[in-house]
């Protein structure tokens, strides 16, 4: 439980200016599924799952995901962005409890 919100961002080790870079990200999150009782009725409670993921590069939105409970536990997302300048790549996850989790990677050219 205590691991909830751990974000991992993976970028290639060498990036050249102008490259289209594939990024992989992972967050530890339960993404609770809808539960049903013995009669098959949905148990009415507040399910904790991620509804929104946003990615910004140099402060500008690049990709965002709107997600539902059909996304796996500990969700993984992959996306691309075009590296133009060195700067931060930031990913933010929002879940239904109102919590946000953040991960950043510094884009540097080698």
């Amino acid at each position: 439980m205590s691991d909830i919100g751990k974000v991992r961002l993976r970028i290639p080790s060498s990036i050249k200016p102008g490259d289209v870079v594939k990024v992989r990200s992972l967050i530890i999150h339960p993404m609770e599924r809808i539960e049903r009782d013995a009669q098959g009725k949905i148990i009415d409670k507040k399910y904790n799952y991620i509804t929104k993921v946003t990615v910004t590069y140099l402060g500008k939105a690049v990709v965002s995901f709107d997600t539902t409970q059909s996304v796996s536990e500990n969700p993984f997302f992959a996306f691309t962005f075009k590296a133009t300048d060195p700067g931060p790549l930031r990913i933010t996850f929002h879940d239904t409890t109102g919590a946000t989790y953040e991960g950043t990677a510094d884009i540097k050219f080698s």
Partner: protein
Amino acid sequence: MAKDHLQSCGAGGVTRRSVLGTLGVLGVAAAPGTLAAPGLAAAQALGAQETVDAGLKRVFGGRAMKDGSGLIKLEIPLIAENGSVVPVSVEVSSPMTPTNYVKHIYIVADKNRIPIVTRASLAPEAGQAYVGANIRLGETGDVRAVAEQSDGTLLQVKREVKVTVGGCGG
């Protein structure tokens, strides 16, 4: 004297507990009410318990979909042994210029209780129309990828995935 003290402690403990209990219930009841409003509303906008036809109609408003099999590459295993983690990736061959780009990529699992799995919104800065995600599949059925281009054209591909163990629970 000592007995009195004990009794008052007991009595005090009970009242304090009951007061705390009431407060706790109130707190729990109040917190989701205030926090849930925006989160749930946003979630409802995309994911709902519905059939896939109802979901597609709600999201796309019955707009015609073209076959995108030449343009969209949907990568997903043919047989998913574990339905709770199924890796999917979608790549659309399209230029990503500010005037012509892929705006949204939807992943839809026909047989899931919540068929609309995710909607990715892309900006031209993404450089390439590519997204990947791990999704849940409840049972064997079609998985679709729908790409919406900036001019509103919808392209769709679908592929059947066999699921050995469902991943959506109850």
